[in-house]
């Protein structure tokens, strides 16, 4: 997409609200160090930053400045991970003094020892049970964090792959259009890296159906490039790995298929886009 078509999207991009193909396009232009888009997005970022003044203006607590300055003095710029200051006091050590046992009469000594043992046992048992409860809760929290981390990693991998495809000089951009359906869908095709399909405001297929992407070769039957459903907001980001079987692709097409997908298209394509030269 040429830069002059992207100008109107610089500000939503800087604000972080932009989605869909336009976001990918601007990202690709910036990654290619496109001078016009870089300048446009920087100016938009400055404008967006002025929205900070909409926040109720509140001075930070006075103590914050002295806290910061003490950290700054202890953290020189050239050493990101500041070494402990040579003038800093050594870490406080806990010294356990072994006191000389008090001499007591033998019968009382045994009674005191038994009572102390009972108290100690009760305290330790309570602490043990509390620690067990805390450990259980922490384990659950950790499992949830692992799950979230895996989801984020998968999402990051998808975006990285999408950006690598969109940024490559050998990538061709394809617009898939339809006579009856809006909106148009953008695809980025790269023979060695794969393909990205991106859309927004896409209507969902019926609950027992799915959309299926096809690569239509110049000769032979269409080859499936994956099935997908738009999310609740109608957004799609599908990344397909390169397919060695596809050497002479002529077009991309999207059909409506049964939920599990089909080995060959069973309906007329809804969106079609020629690959061009």
């Amino acid at each position, binding site marked *: 997409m040429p830069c002059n078509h992207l100008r*109107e999207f610089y*500000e*939503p991009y800087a*604000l*972080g*609200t*932009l*989605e869909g193909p336009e976001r990918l396009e601007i990202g690709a232009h910036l990654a290619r160090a496109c001078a016009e888009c870089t300048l446009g997005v*920087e*100016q*938009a*970022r*400055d*404008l*967006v*930053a*002025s*929205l*900070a*003044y*909409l*926040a*109720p*203006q*509140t*001075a*930070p*607590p*006075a103590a*914050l*400045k002295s*806290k*910061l*300055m003490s*950290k*700054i*003095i202890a*953290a*020189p*710029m050239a050493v*990101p991970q500041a070494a402990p200051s040579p003038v800093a006091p050594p870490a406080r050590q806990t010294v356990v003094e072994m006191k000389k046992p008090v001499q007591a009469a033998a019968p009382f000594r045994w009674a005191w020892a038994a009572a102390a043992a009972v108290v100690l046992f009760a305290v330790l048992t309570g602490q043990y049970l509390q620690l067990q409860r805390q450990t259980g809760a922490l384990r659950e929290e950790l499992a949830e964090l692992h799950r*979230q981390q895996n989801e984020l990693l998968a999402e990051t991998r998808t975006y990285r792959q999408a950006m690598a495809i969109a940024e490559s000089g050998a990538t061709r951009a394809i617009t898939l259009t339809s006579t009856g359906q809006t909106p148009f869908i953008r695809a980025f095709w790269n023979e060695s890296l794969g393909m990205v399909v991106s859309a*927004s*405001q896409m209507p969902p297929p019926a609950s027992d159906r799915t959309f299926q992407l096809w690569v239509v070769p110049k000769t032979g039957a269409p080859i499936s490039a994956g099935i997908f459903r738009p999310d*609740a*907001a*109608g*957004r799609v980001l599908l990344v397909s790995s390169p397919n060695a079987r596809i050497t002479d692709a002529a077009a991309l097409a999207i059909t409506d298929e049964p939920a599990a997908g089909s080995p060959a298209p069973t309906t007329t394509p809804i969106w079609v886009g020629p690959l061009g030269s």
Partner: protein
Amino acid sequence: MERVVLQDPQAIEMLYDRYSRLVYSLVLRILREPATAEELVQEVFLHLWRNARAYQPERGALEPWLVTMARNRALDALRSKAAKQRRVEQDSEEFMLDQLNLRIQAGSPAASAEELIDQNSRALLVRQHMQSLPAAQRRAIEMAYFQGMTQSEIAEALHEPLGTVKTWIRAALTRLREGLAEVGHAM
């Protein structure tokens, strides 16, 4: 900034006096938690101190650079699950927080008069332009800027068509850009 690069603590102190109010106000508005906001303000200025050489004046003024860094970090913190939970609880206490902010403001030292006039005139201008927008449009901009919501999320939250939200945001920013340019705050 050159003095910050040369490791002059007084220089970073001056920058703190000039920008800490803006940065703190922004992150407090996003996070609604004074303690977390204070930590984040420290992080931002420590980052500036440690990475002063990375700042390129030809790529833009310092204020937007600092503000953008602070906003990104605050939105990252907001997006974490725990922060989201806290936000749900605290949104209902917005009035109480505003009262607390007023008390904090009353008890804190101000920056120099000249700096405050400069920042205040800019703040006034931005607020005036936003106030002139219809309430729903203003809300859309606030949801985008302070909550990091996308156009689709805003459309869903406001029960408005996506196209309408896109138009609102574009129109509001265009109007702000033109308004700032008119009085010499070119963007």
